[in-house]
């Protein structure tokens, strides 16, 4: 098993600020926008972006929540291990809002497909966009592409992209692991 660093902490930080600016460009004051982090790993990215938007760009009234997609996945009973659920925290209705899904790595696109169904339990959004830190090009199973991407990588199937966060693993770093 070998691993190499795709992004170090400085690069992650630059990318986060760029993504925040791109969001502001399209969503102005965020009055009708909701940032939704996809559980389990997207919530770290979403909370970091929310922090940057609030502290560095003075965005007030940011709607921000976490969505768990476990019960909407299409691989129930297909893997060896049962799917374990995580918490959903959405204390607002997304009816007519502009929703931005936030996830760390976009790979097959199946999680996003599940999220598109799951979010309907909270109303009918006006518009849904997708933001990912890492976009694994050429590995999609479904016609899904990000609207905002941190870094595009070409990783083959037996490789894995791991995103570590300061809050959780002690360091902001993205690895490409060859199994």
């Amino acid at each position, binding site marked *: 098993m070998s691993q190499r660093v795709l992004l170090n902490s400085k690069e992650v930080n630059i990318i986060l600020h760029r993504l925040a600016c791109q969001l502001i460009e399209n969503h102005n004051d965020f009055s009708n926008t909701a940032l939704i982090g996809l559980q389990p790993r997207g919530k770290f990215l979403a909370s970091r972006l929310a922090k940057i938007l609030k502290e560095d760009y003075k965005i007030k009234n940011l709607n921000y929540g976490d969505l*768990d997609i*476990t*019960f*909407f*996945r299409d691989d*129930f*009973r*297909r893997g060896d*291990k*049962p*799917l*374990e*659920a*995580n*918490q*959903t925290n959405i204390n607002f*209705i997304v009816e007519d809002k502009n929703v931005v899904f936030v996830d760390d790595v976009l790979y097959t696109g199946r999680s996003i497909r599940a999220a598109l*169904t*799951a979010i*309907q*339990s*909270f*109303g009918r959004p006006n518009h849904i966009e997708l933001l990912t830190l890492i976009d694994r090009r050429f590995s999609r199973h479904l016609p899904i592409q990000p609207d905002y991407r941190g870094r595009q990588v070409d990783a083959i199937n037996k490789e894995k992209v791991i995103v570590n966060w300061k809050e959780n693993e002690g360091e902001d770093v993205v690895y490409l692991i060859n199994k």
Partner: protein
Amino acid sequence: MSELSVNHLLGIKYLNKADIKLIFETADQFKEVINRPIKKVPSLRDITIANLFFENSTRTKLSFELAEKRLSADVINFSAAQSSVKKGETLIDTVNNILSMKVDMVVMRHPSPGAGIFLSKHINASIVNAGDGAHEHPTQALLDSYSIREALGSVKDKNVVIVGDILHSRVALSNIYALKLQGANVMVCGPKTLLPKYIKDLGVEVETNLRKALNWCDVANMLRVQNERMDISYFPSTREYAQQFGINKTLLDSLDKKITIMHPGPINRGVEITSDVADSNQSIILNQVENGVAIRMAVIYLLASKIRK
């Protein structure tokens, strides 16, 4: 990642501590789901569940059916009153006929203790025991513990008294197993005729004075007197039972501390519990009903995830 240690939910006796923890943590997520504007998830869309009720039930049946539908399973219902059971068909034949229609899971209530265990040895489907005679009612015990955990933060080290007809109660036995497994202290209280002889062997305390029992406990689970299972008289009159073992507001207010009141339903108002107690803010009876759906969703989801394609 964790999964249940069992393929069927036949009784709490067959579960371990980790199973209960997993069921509760999954139920937490389903409780959030059933409070959404749209309360349905598609997880079990390729699973078919048969609800076989060989004994009357309203709330348990509704609760199971709702849980199954919220998980998007296909549901078929069967009640013995309108079936071939009346024509002399055996249990295995009835169930095998239903399973030939490609059913993945069976939820069964049956008047005979051990019916679920018997069935699990003969058929190829996951079985959820929804009450077998006076033996076990595992989902009720799970939702009771879950409600205690919700109201008091945890079950461990809490004093729980189960009051009433322990002899005929499957809820009592399942609750005793579940509470002991989670480290609670359990006491049973009722007329001596309704307390089984060797109940102490299960590690519970026995008390026949209701006031003493209530002063000891944090939670009182009031059971219904199961007249339908009594072939002889176990106490002189309902009025006398209500006076000795029924809980009323005066008694509740005169206790040393504020206790939590539970009841598995259906309530005989004025017998084991008076209306002002059942509807008071110390009662969590309706929370139990709500939690019942979340717990059953969790149990069905976790068992279904073990059914292989």
